[in-house]
């Protein structure tokens, strides 16, 4: 095994890009989990709807207003898709989760699975089962950095994700609504007694999570240049894994878990063949990711940054 710095750097860049997207989606899972103790299985599909809506808007704009600058097209597409996702997140919570708040713990999990199926079916009805090419709104021209390459769209993904995560951290830690969110996560009835509008906070959490998910969906579609009705499933699964890796319910944990999972996957895919003497190829990258997750959880059963272990098994 010859160590090559440029290849390592390339894997790290790929990992960071992938990881930023995972982190953004993982935030949606972890915020909802932190407050409700619920795995929102349909979150991945909200991400998919965001990507598909943005794709439709962008394609329409490029057809009807070809002179429009591409960055503006992207902004309008995200601005159009985000409210759709937010409305979806809000409705989902009102219809499928709120009535079940005091039900047995697995009941909302099943409705979440049901909602996920409904959203996928809806996407198939609207867009069909084809793969769509996402227009190249941000350049994919590679830039050389120390022997590795990075594209402007990748730079945009990492910076935008960092900005959004910083914004979210500020909001949760410094604002009134953020304090209300933390109080609700800590103890719902007491927060209600202290005058926190618990239902409002929960709705707000779903809206913010869905909005972040929407941006992540657009990023993925823009990076790979492709979007389809099934993309939310795998992405959601990975992001959920990332959230658990970092300690589910913990916002910083989701960011760390997302970045780590992205790095693990891309380094795993790159080096697993060398590590196992060619026995296992790069199709085992998911095995590698889950294996790392299992090992981490054996030593830290509540994730890397999780503090409390859910007693409500």
């Amino acid at each position: 095994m010859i160590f090559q710095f440029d290849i390592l750097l390339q894997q790290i860049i790929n990992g960071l890009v992938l990881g930023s997207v995972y982190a953004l989606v993982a935030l949606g899972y972890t915020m909802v989990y932190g407050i409700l103790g619920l795995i929102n299985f349909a979150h991945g599909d909200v991400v998919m709807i965001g990507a598909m809506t943005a794709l439709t808007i962008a394609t329409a704009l490029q057809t009807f207003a070809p002179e429009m600058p591409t960055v503006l097209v992207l902004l309008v597409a995200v601005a159009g898709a985000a409210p759709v996702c937010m409305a979806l997140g809000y409705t989902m919570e009102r219809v499928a989760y709120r009535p079940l708040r005091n039900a047995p713990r697995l009941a909302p999990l099943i409705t979440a699975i049901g909602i996920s199926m409904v959203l996928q079916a809806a996407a198939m009805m609207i867009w069909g089962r084809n793969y769509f090419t996402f227009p190249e709104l941000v350049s994919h021209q590679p830039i050389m950095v120390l022997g590795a390459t990075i594209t402007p769209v990748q730079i945009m993904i990492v910076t935008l994700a960092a900005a959004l995560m910083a914004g979210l951290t500020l909001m949760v830690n410094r604002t009134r609504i953020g304090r209300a969110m933390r109080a609700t996560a800590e103890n719902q009835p007491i927060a209600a007694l202290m005058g926190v509008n618990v239902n409002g906070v929960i709705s707000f959490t779903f809206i913010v999570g869905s909005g972040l998910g929407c941006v992540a969906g657009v990023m993925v579609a823009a990076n790979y240049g492709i979007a389809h009705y099934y993309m939310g499933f795998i992405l959601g699964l990975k992001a959920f894994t990332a959230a658990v890796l970092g300690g589910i319910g913990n916002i910083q944990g989701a960011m760390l878990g997302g970045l780590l999972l992205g790095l693990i996957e891309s380094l795993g895919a790159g080096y697993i063949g060398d590590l196992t003497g060619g026995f296992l190829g790069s199709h085992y990258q998911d095995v590698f990711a889950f294996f790392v997750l299992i090992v981490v959880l054996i030593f830290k059963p509540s994730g890397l940054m999780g503090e409390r272990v859910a007693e409500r098994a």
Partner: protein
Amino acid sequence: MTDRFAALKAHPAAKWVGMLLIGAALLLLPFAVGHVGGPAWVRVLDFALLYVMLALGLNIVVGFAGLLDLGYIAFYAVGAYTYALLASPHFGIHLPLWALLPIAAGVAAIFGVLLGMPVLRLRGDYLAIVTLGFGEIIRIFLNNLNAPINITNGPQGISRIDPLAVGDFTLTKSHTLFGITFSGVHWHYYFFLLLALLIIFICMRLEDSRIGRAWVAIREDEVAAKAMGINTRNIKLLAFAMGATFGGVAGGLFAGFQAFVSPESFILMESIVVLCAVVLGGMGNIPGVIIGALILATLPEFLRYTIMPAQQALFGQQIVDPEVLRTMLFGLALVLVMLFRPAGLWPSQVRKRELAR
């Protein structure tokens, strides 16, 4: 009226008459179904029985012991591949059924313990994601273990698997008995029914046993269970192993029934469907779980056969792709059932009491 009914119910013979009636109904069911819907529906019935076995196995893990398992289909896969490898031209091994099913069950049980060991300390959703990962790992290995040594034949799967046969009696062939011709799907139905009944019996006996009560104690409060002298580690491992055993048996039967296995059959969605069967029916309650499994196995087929004609009758043409509509209605059904009956269609008495509080 109710008094008379209660008196009738109290009669010692009533239980036996009831059992006889249910038995007769179960024996005649494939003919009734075949008469109304054709042989394809008898096949659906066979699959429904496999689902019943799977759901009962998962019910031990999730319903009794309260360990959320999202990768349960892995054990089904292990059972199916064990059967496939030991009874097909792939390795040229052809073991008889009486050896295959116990081996499939045993291998699955070993995998159950293998999964159980590292996750003993995990709870709730951490457990869920690790089991999910375990299921995916098994599937990815099945998909890729065709190189460097060809073990599973990769994505193409293993075909020409030996049919289920008891001695010289091959279940896939038609046999005439008492002047009635039973076709392959019928024989499979009776064989699966026999095993399903056996599994139901084991589950019912387990539920009231020391082990069953220990599982429930762990589900309700692990720390208290430990304080009461329950060896939580062994009892939890036993739950994983028992659940996996039933999954392995169902998997072996599936391989023999289909004569073909491939990693495609063991995707995460399958685990989720089995979990839905358990929760939808009524977690921890055996009759409820059976009903949940029957509904989840037959509802998609039912929708498959009714959506097209219904659309044609309503609009005169096909407006929405039936497959898409099927997914949508299935999802809606899950949501609605849970909204109106959060504890499942037929919850266990204990849960009912908990909810009433």
